[in-house]
């Protein structure tokens, strides 16, 4: 917890540092006198204290200066190189070869899914057959003759079945 400095103390510090205007300094010196302080004595005491502290309180000197300098430089260099490395990494990941490989992989996956998940014309050989022959309409010219369409789905054969035709004897030669 920090103790809040009073306005008098702040002004005292500013007076010591010579940051008060001559008028403010004169007013503050008068206030000091009113409070029972001698401005000259106080300034002398503060200067003596500062000199004493400077003399006996030296800042610690770091050893291995070269090592620490190297460490600091290394860290600065890393900070400078990082964005470039990230950018070059992005280029590598999204480059044309990677896109090509990704496209090929997608096609392969799509082909495998298509082959395994989408049925093509059913399972049996007959269902997969490309056979297509269908009778749309048929009419005969004689009452005794009839025509009917027979489609055998197992063998994939369409027959226009004519019934009532005259029997052809063995001596009848089909020319």
């Amino acid at each position, binding site marked *: 917890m920090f103790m809040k400095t009073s306005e008098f103390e702040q002004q005292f510090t500013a007076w010591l540092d010579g940051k008060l205007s001559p008028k403010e300094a004169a007013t503050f010196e008068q206030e000091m006198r009113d409070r029972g302080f001698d401005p000259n004595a106080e300034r002398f005491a503060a200067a003596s204290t500062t000199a004493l502290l400077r003399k006996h309180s030296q800042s610690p000197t770091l050893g291995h200066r070269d090592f620490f300098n190297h460490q600091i430089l290394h860290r600065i260099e890393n900070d400078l190189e990082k964005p470039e490395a990230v950018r070059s990494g992005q280029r590598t990941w999204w480059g044309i070869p990677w896109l090509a490989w990704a496209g090929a992989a997608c096609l392969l996956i799509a082909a495998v899914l298509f082959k395994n998940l989408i049925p093509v014309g059913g399972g049996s050989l007959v269902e997969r057959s490309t056979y*297509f022959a269908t009778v*749309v309409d048929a009419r005969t010219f004689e009452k005794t003759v009839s025509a009917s369409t027979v489609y055998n789905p197992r063998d994939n054969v369409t027959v226009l079945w004519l019934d009532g*035709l*005259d029997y*052809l004897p063995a001596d009848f030669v089909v020319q």
Partner: protein
Amino acid sequence: MTLRLLALLCCAAALLPSPLHADDKVWSAVLFATNVSSPKEPPDELKPIAARLKRVFGYNQFEIVGTDQEEVNDGVERQLKPTKTFWLNLKARHASIKEARGGYLLNVQLYQDKRALVDTVALIAPDSPLFFRGPLHAKGQILIVLQVTP
């Protein structure tokens, strides 16, 4: 803009029906199906479908009595005469439906000599034979095959 126009034209071209294949042909054959103790090997033309024919018609031997082939032209009437006795009169229209795979809508009349047996409209994809079960003959059966060959 030019690329978009080009892509649009390509899509439109892909959606248009495929043009007629000038070299498409319609092939017909008259077969004689019989049951014999030692059946002959089916002719080369029938080998791909011989097993199916056996199952569907119940005969174990199929012989070709005669064949005929004509080029298909859209809307042009053709006569196929695999034999003098059994022959066909047909008119072809290019079929645009997907299942026909570039096949034809055929208006076919089957004749026995001068006698019209049947008038039919059939949709046939290439290499998908349509069979006519004809009259019984001696100890067998007359069959007529009609097939579009690309």
